[in-house]
């Protein structure tokens, strides 16, 4: 294993972990407001397809990112209607949203399959411009990667240092109490879902517009569900989500490195490493989970009449 390949694992972890981080942050906000969004995979697909479509039509990747975020937020509002206004079961509604996302994204992305787009520009860090190209391309990150950490800090600040964040957390713990203190649980849940959906949209946008640079159907490959697992891993805390996202995508990159370096282990087995790692972490951390999960997570708020 060379220096390049080890740096490469880190670089791959950052490149493919960024979309996971944004998505996980989005799900953290949803769940902090008491809503389990199992439709995340569908939200990712719809916003990813929209991002590609807009980028391809306008030629401007930033517009693509913006529209992906907005569409992500809007898609999450569908879930909001089902589980907040209609008081539906969150798990069933989430799965319905996921299947809806499969179909809707295929429809949106249909004419953009196999098209080449201009992705988000990759910026060179000043002072590193004279590295050999193979090394340089490892650290030429795009804007969404640079914004990932500031965005995480912003979400932390929003959740733990603002009145709005207090409201979101209060609704997630006990909506009746939040209502009694003069907040509108419904409104807050909708707001949280919209913000969470926008973050998922950013995640999808990074994957399609900055990383793979093209659209294939069902291309999220279960990342929406990984993000749900990472929320538990990060104990509903934005900062720990960074570790989770990097660890998972690092494990993917690492197993690919093992494959490429000729380790005589079945690739079938290697391919399961990231998932086994996720399960392992969930088991190890599972014991103390009860203390950090929002108390009324998944519960339907029937209103205070």
């Amino acid at each position, binding site marked *: 294993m060379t220096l390049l390949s080890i740096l490469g694992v880190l670089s791959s972890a950052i490149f493919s972990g960024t979309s996971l981080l944004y998505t996980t942050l989005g799900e953290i906000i949803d769940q902090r407001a008491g809503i389990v969004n199992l439709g995340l995979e569908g939200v990712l697909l719809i916003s990813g397809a929209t991002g590609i479509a807009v980028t391809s039509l306008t030629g401007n990747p930033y517009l693509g990112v913006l529209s992906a975020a907005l569409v992500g937020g809007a898609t999450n509002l569908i879930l909001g209607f089902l589980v907040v206004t209609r008081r539906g079961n969150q798990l069933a509604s989430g799965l319905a949203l996921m299947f809806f996302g499969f179909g809707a994204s295929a429809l949106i992305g249909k004419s953009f399959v196999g098209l080449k787009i201009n992705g988000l520009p990759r910026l060179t860090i000043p002072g590193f411009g004279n590295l050999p190209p193979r090394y340089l391309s490892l650290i030429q990150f795009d804007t969404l990667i640079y914004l990932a950490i500031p965005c995480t800090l912003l979400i932390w600040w929003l959740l733990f240092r603002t009145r709005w964040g207090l409201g979101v957390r209060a609704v997630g713990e006990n909506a009746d109490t939040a209502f009694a203190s003069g907040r509108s649980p419904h409104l807050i849940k909708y707001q949280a879902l919209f913000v969470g959906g926008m973050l998922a949209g950013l995640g999808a946008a990074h994957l399609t517009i900055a990383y793979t640079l093209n659209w*294939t159907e069902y291309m999220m490959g279960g990342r929406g569900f990984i993000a749900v697992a990472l929320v538990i891993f990060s104990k509903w805390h934005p900062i720990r989500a960074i570790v989770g996202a990097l660890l998972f995508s690092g494990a993917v990159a690492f197993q690919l490195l093992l494959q490429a370096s000729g380790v005589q282990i079945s690739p079938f087995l290697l391919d399961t490493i990231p998932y086994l790692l996720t399960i392992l972490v969930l088991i190890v951390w599972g014991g103390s989970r009860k203390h950090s999960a929002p108390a009324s997570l998944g519960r339907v708020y029937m209103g205070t009449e």
Partner: protein
Amino acid sequence: MMKKKMLYTVLSVLMALSLLLAACAPAATPTEAPAEPAVEEPVVEEPVEPAEPEEPMEEGPCLIIGALHGGPINDAGYNQAMHESVAAIAENIECVEIIEAENVPEEAGATATMENMISEGAGMIIATAFNHQYPALELAGKYPDVIFEHAGGWEMSGNFANFFGEPPDAWYMMGVAAGRMTETNKLGFVAAFPLGWSLTFANAFHLGAVSVNPDVETTVSFTFSWGDSAKEADTTNALINQGVDVITMHVDSPATIISTAESRGAYSIGFQSLHAQQFAPEYWISGTGYTLGGTLTWLTSTVLDGTWEPIFLRCSLWDGCMAMAPFGPKVPQEVQDEVMAVSAALESGETVVFTGPILDQEGNVVVAEGDVLTDDVMSSVDWLVQGMVGSPK
């Protein structure tokens, strides 16, 4: 209670809607979404829609061909190549009408689609997806008057046959080009699954490369999905970080892999469709794709004049069933000439790709001296040639 009832109504409408939409989309990767709402939810409407609305015809076509594909027909990959091959029939024989359905992923959907096509009058069915062979074979028994052709299959019956290109020769030529172009002597092959054909292609590629450059090492990595773009990008990067400087692939759409290689300054070689070249304006070496239009046209003409017989049809680069993309701007003339010379040697039979002795990675003889690996064995290969990196099982 009322509200609950209404909720279920809304939910079931949503479910049915998503089902309908999903029917127009390809299969999810096998690792995800085991939940199939179709099991619990009785669907009133037929989930499969015909690709084109039925039109009243003034003059009946001489033959209606129903063609179905597993994925989207604009993927710059396998499905597009097959779509263009089918479309060529109608261009060459004017009176033929084609009903086409794309994104038919599952076997059940394929059966319904084909029955639909037959009920619309299709006298010939062309199924291009790998997993549609058995649904088509089953229907061939049910509709003895309809002729079925499957791309790449091996089963045969009275009205069921198959056709395909012969990629190993093409892969060998691409290997020659790669072996000459590499500076690091490391080639990378991204494959979806360790399937027989994928391993055969990788082996042929490697054998071509070592025939001109004995120091070459080919690394095979698997993504375990025909279309997980992000993982394809990760895999390509992992290979390049290991020093690989020529990348090729056997996945559905080569778009992501070639774009990634291009952005890292690594050469790429395309496969499936000739359209792949657009993703690598600078570091493109060459590529091969399926161009089965002529073969399908001929098959159709035999159906029309009543001489169609079930044959196991395989045709090569030189019969026009496959084609080679133009060389990229960085490929020197000597290399181009050498590849063309190898092409001529393969065509004349002077060079045969899998001629023994061939050893696998552990040094076992897999093709004995004087033997040649035959077509029927190629689909079940589970070894990689000595000197290749990666685990085939």
